[in-house]
């Protein structure tokens, strides 16, 4: 019965493999051998139009982050198994974006790839445009060591080196929550005309807010985004690079600083003095 199940899976895999969308893509990730472990069947490969078959409704969010391809395999050793999923996204920022959506700030963070973490039989990491998700079953007390071993082995097989998006280092450190930065790929702040943006969460003396950075394709693109945003919130001011104090009906009082490709800003920060201080910080970043 088990053999038939695997043959069926293999046949299904063959069908998926033969689909036009996949045939047009790059070679799927080749999983490395891991000492003492065997691959349970052939890797399954999923493209943007078949990801739903694997993760159902969860696929929507991955597609938002320009998902390109997923390769999945299961390693087995006695009663233990490790499921390995390698998601390839269009850019490292997009891989970071989906990783940041699923990252658990309270997890144990690891220096694997650009960043990884281990938590409760799960080890996830990103490296360049790849998001790797490992989960163990029946791995017992050795779970952490086993998953970290797999993570290192797969990391060696992926292109490297890799680092977190450089722009994250521009967010000021004071009050910043560790490992809570995000990359939002679309509909930033809930507006379809704003493209992607990075956010960082802050908690200072009980005040919780976010700082953000929108990065346009170029200065003209960013100018167009800001222009549309100011129109949306009915803020009448001449368009010029520099600081803005605005009120957004959904987000409240915000400070913005536009320079070139970047718009820096605050969300949820009601303290006007602190907003003004951040504007100076943004100006400092922008004019470096």
């Amino acid at each position, binding site marked *: 019965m088990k053999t*038939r*199940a*695997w*043959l*069926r*899976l293999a*046949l*299904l895999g063959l*069908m*998926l493999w033969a*689909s*036009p*969308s996949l045939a047009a893509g790059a070679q799927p990730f080749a999983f490395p051998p891991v000492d003492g472990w065997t691959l349970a069947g052939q890797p399954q490969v999923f493209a*943007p*139009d*078949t*990801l*739903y*078959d*694997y993760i*159902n*409704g*969860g*696929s*929507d*969010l991955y*597609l*938002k982050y320009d998902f390109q391809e997923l390769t999945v395999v299961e390693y087995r050793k006695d009663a233990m198994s490790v499921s390995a999923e390698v998601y390839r996204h269009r850019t490292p920022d997009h891989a970071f974006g989906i990783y940041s*959506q*699923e*990252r*658990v700030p309270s997890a144990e963070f690891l220096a694997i790839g650009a960043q990884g973490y281990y938590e409760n039989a799960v080890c996830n990491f990103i490296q360049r445009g790849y998001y790797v998700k490992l989960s163990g*079953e029946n791995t017992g007390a050795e779970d952490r060591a086993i998953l970290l071993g797999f993570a290192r082995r797969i990391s060696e097989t992926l292109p490297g080196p890799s680092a977190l998006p450089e722009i994250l280092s521009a967010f000021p450190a004071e009050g910043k929550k560790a490992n809570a930065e*995000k990359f*939002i790929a*679309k*509909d930033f*702040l*809930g*507006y*379809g005309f704003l493209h992607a943006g990075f956010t960082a969460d802050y908690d200072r003396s009980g005040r919780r807010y976010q700082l953000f950075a929108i990065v346009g394709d170029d200065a003209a693109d960013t100018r167009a985004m800001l222009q549309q945003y100011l129109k949306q*919130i009915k803020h009448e001011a001449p368009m010029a690079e520099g600081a803005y104090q605005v009120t957004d*009906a*959904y*987000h*409240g*009082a915000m400070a913005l600083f536009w320079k070139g490709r970047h718009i820096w800003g605050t969300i*949820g920060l*009601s303290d006007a003095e602190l907003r003004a201080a951040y504007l100076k910080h943004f100006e400092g970043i922008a004019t470096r």
Partner: protein
Amino acid sequence: MAIGRRDFLKSTATSLGGFAYLSASLTRPPDAPDKFEGTRVLGRTGIRLPIVSMGVMNTDNPQLVRAALEAGYVFLDTAQGYQRGTNEAMLGEILKDRPRDSFVIATKASLPKDQTTGGYGPDATEEAYTKKIDTSLKSLRLDYVDIYHHHGTWTRHATLHEPILSALQKAKKAGKIRWIGVSTHRNEPEVIDAATDSKIYDVVLPAYNFRQQHAAEIQKAIARAAAAGLGVVGMKSMGGNRGGAYASTQIDARACIKWVLQDPNVHTVICGFTTFDQMALDMTILKDLTLSAAERDQLRTASVDAGLYCQGCGGCTGQCAQGLPIPDLMRAHMYLYGYRNLVAAQDLVLSLALPRDVCGDCVACPVACANGWNLKNRVRDVVRLRDVPASFVA
């Protein structure tokens, strides 16, 4: 920082006036006449809901959720798995300051399943599932959730997995959940029927959209469920990318949502909007559920473009020199490529008693398809299933 209702309404491009009754309508008895358009009663739960609801899974923007609640959205749908629990946590932060009777919330969880058979293994215990429920309550910062869905089953057997049902029933009895639901993204009719037969489930949450080639079967299963008193919540109304390589048409979300809501047995549809504009536009459905001519055209074009749905127009009948049952073969093609059901596809192909040399000596196919499909290629692709040993697919 709180955004007033007045500010919100002023800022919304589309007027949302007239929807303020929605929150109050939650307490309306289920047997009261539905004097307001835009609400339906969720089966035996008795909860009256706006016909459009918010699927929170695609957003991590708390302001969008807050704005939705201000605008009149009442029902929020999330899952423990969305963003590895952070989606539930975000909602917990938002909901902690709101009166508990001002919103209805559903969440869901599953346990690891065999991806080939869809069945549960020995680790899928009552204790494991109870932990899932407790984790959701903790993340959501709630004493109870209104609906807890057994998430993502696609077989009758898994839907009726006793340890999970037992965990759900005990949680209901303990007041941790008010109603028990099941969500399904494929093989929906089987799951809905199992839920109906179980006498345990109160709500079903199936994927249901115009692109599904088995939408008629889902509709029948939903009708049976609704007749038995189950609440029906539609999801995946846009059909995502299910058309696979054949799909390319983008379609207005409202047309898709309205299509689902034409079925009176669907009580609400969860919409996965990610912008304030989309949120406001989806709300306009409450004022008018009618599919415009343009929307009907869009749906028709998109369903044909999805490329897997034989409209059954009969235009091809009698055109094949071999008398092949083209609509049946197209249905098998849909089973195979639409929802990867090898068994159903092969069973159908084998039942058709096709000649050995399908297409015979025909060089050019004389059959003209109203959808413009290349029937010869599709027939060729699907009849190959005859040569796959049944032991591979059974």
